[in-house]
């Protein structure tokens, strides 16, 4: 029984991690919670405000429209990237020398820092000198993302699709590679068409990785900041001002710390809630086995 303590010692090894997590997440979060329920005019002087900031945020039309833009953006992103990623994964070769070429090509956009992506697209889409912007205008489209909200949205979405679809591709490809050959052979023999193979073999076998892809893409796109900030700065007007950009404007631009803190907490809770709902919905039925 003496030996039992040997195993318990392992808990000590977890301590550093707990410490770092506390420093990283819990303590700043508590600070934010602190700000969100108090008001301050000078350093060290705080007044308790209760839920005032929350009420203010929740009733502000500016928050509503930023939130609306955020959901719309995420919805578009998911609607494009998930099917597109799956389609590309399906089209990729399963064996041979091209596999590694494809995988490297797919991984490339993921390796570029976010602000660099924003800067690249900023130039790429400029109507006078950028290849994309110039090209579109040359083809007869009236395109200027610095002035037209629609063009700005188009550019932001396109940029995100370019940047992140490969993540979905790689995950979906991993899922596809794990399907034994016998399944495809059996389907051939059963006379299943291409779509039936996808619907009844590939999709069910990819389900788990697709849930992960969906969650990752939801979280990332819902919290997107750097790229649109670099590309459009939230404009023209407020047309691409997503929640995070609005939040930063409130906190740093306007120094509304209470409002910003309340927004942060709401933002955080929303992300958490949506992730949880997604996850439980999609994992339902998995337990039957």
């Amino acid at each position: 029984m003496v030996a039992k303590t040997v195993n318990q010692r392992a808990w000590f090894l977890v301590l550093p991690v707990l410490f770092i997590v506390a420093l990283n997440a819990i303590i700043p979060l508590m600070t934010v919670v602190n700000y969100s329920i108090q008001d301050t005019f000078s350093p060290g002087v705080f007044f308790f405000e209760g839920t005032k900031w929350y009420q203010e945020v929740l009733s502000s039309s500016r928050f509503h429209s930023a939130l609306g833009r955020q959901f719309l953006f995420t919805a578009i992103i998911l609607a494009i990237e998930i099917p597109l990623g799956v389609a590309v994964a399906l089209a990729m070769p399963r064996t041979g020398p091209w596999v590694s070429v494809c995988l490297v090509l797919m991984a490339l956009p993921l390796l570029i820092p976010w602000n660099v992506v924003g800067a690249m697209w900023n130039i790429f889409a400029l109507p006078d000198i950028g290849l994309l912007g110039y090209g579109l205008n040359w083809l007869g489209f009236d395109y200027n993302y610095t002035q037209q909200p629609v063009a700005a949205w188009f550019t932001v979405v396109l940029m995100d699709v370019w940047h992140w679809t490969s993540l979905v591709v790689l995950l979906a490809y991993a899922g596809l590679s794990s399907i034994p050959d016998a399944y495809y052979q059996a389907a051939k023999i059963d006379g299943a068409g291409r779509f039936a193979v996808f619907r009844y073999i590939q999709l069910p076998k990819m389900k788990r990785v697709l849930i992960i892809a969906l969650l990752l893409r939801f979280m990332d796109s819902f919290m997107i900041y750097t790229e649109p900030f670099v590309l459009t700065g939230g404009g023209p007007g407020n047309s691409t001002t997503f929640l995070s950009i609005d939040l930063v404007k409130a906190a740093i631009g306007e120094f509304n710390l209470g409002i910003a803190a309340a927004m942060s907490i709401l933002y955080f809770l929303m992300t958490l809630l949506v992730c949880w709902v997604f996850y439980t919905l999609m994992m339902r039925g998995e337990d039957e086995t």
Partner: protein
Amino acid sequence: MLEMINVSKRVGNELHIDNVSLKFERGSLNVLLGPTLAGKTSLMRLMAGLDRPSSGDIQVDGKSVLGMQVRHRNVAMVYQQFINYPGFSVYDNIASPMRLAGVDTAKLDKRVREAADLLRLTEYLDRMPLQLSGGQQQRTAIARALVKQADLVLLDEPLANLDYKLREELRVELPKIFAQTGAILLYATTEPHEALLLGGQSATLHQGKVTQFGKTIDVYNNPQSLTTAQTFSDPPFNTVALTKQGGELRFGNANVANIPQKINALNDGDYTAAVRPHHLSLAPSEKHSVAVQAEVGTSEITGSETFVHVNANGNRWVVLTHGVHRVNPGEQITLYVDPASLYLFDHQQSLVHAPEQYAQG
């Protein structure tokens, strides 16, 4: 000596191992026999220390090893899948446990070569595992377990993924190879035939319980419960519910008057009788005196033997006879039972009578 004392393992709501007590001596060969999910692998994981029991104790030479880590226990394990280090040559694979233990080079080399020789791997020492056949890959895994000179060697269906004939060869070799090391050898299998060929001692498992433990041939000949009997028979036991009344056994519309004395001495009442397929006959003889009508389902001819699957009074039975017998599906035939070969189980499915020839004394 390894001892498991009232060991149970619960995972979530499921009881994977149910109050198991077993004792294994040094140098013994032990078979764990049971169908998939009966708990063979769970039991081995507990012995190896990969899992902790929910209750009970595991002792080596009288001392509890529950708190001891796997790497301090000196256990070797071989799995159904061929598990080797894919990036190591066969030589390095076999040497790996000794390298970890810090055995000096000269001794290591000698032991690797000895093991390779014993398992006929000498000419493949420089190859990579994936360049070998399945049998050779598994031999490599076994050689690695061998050089470890472990006190406890756990073989979890090691031959299941090999060809039938290769299995026959390795099955004969394995116990011999490990017998010299003095280790406790445990061998899990789903196949009764394999257990019999290995010999040693057997523990039959059913739904996480050990239903019987003893000398393999004794467990086979004297199953103490119907469950053990069914676990340890391939082809399956033929069973029938019958009633003993006075000096007669009644089942269906058959009456058997001339019954062995030992059966006659039992109390009147309901029993389940079981008879092995090769104790049934398609022709009457002095011994095979009890006639049973049956309808043929299918028959299988192996060349040397014939399996006739029949429906006898609503019971699915199989008859195993020597030579080739052609019978047609649907045909009505008469089977002959030797009453001396009957096993009887009471309503709690415990053995109350075994054939005279197996009676323990």
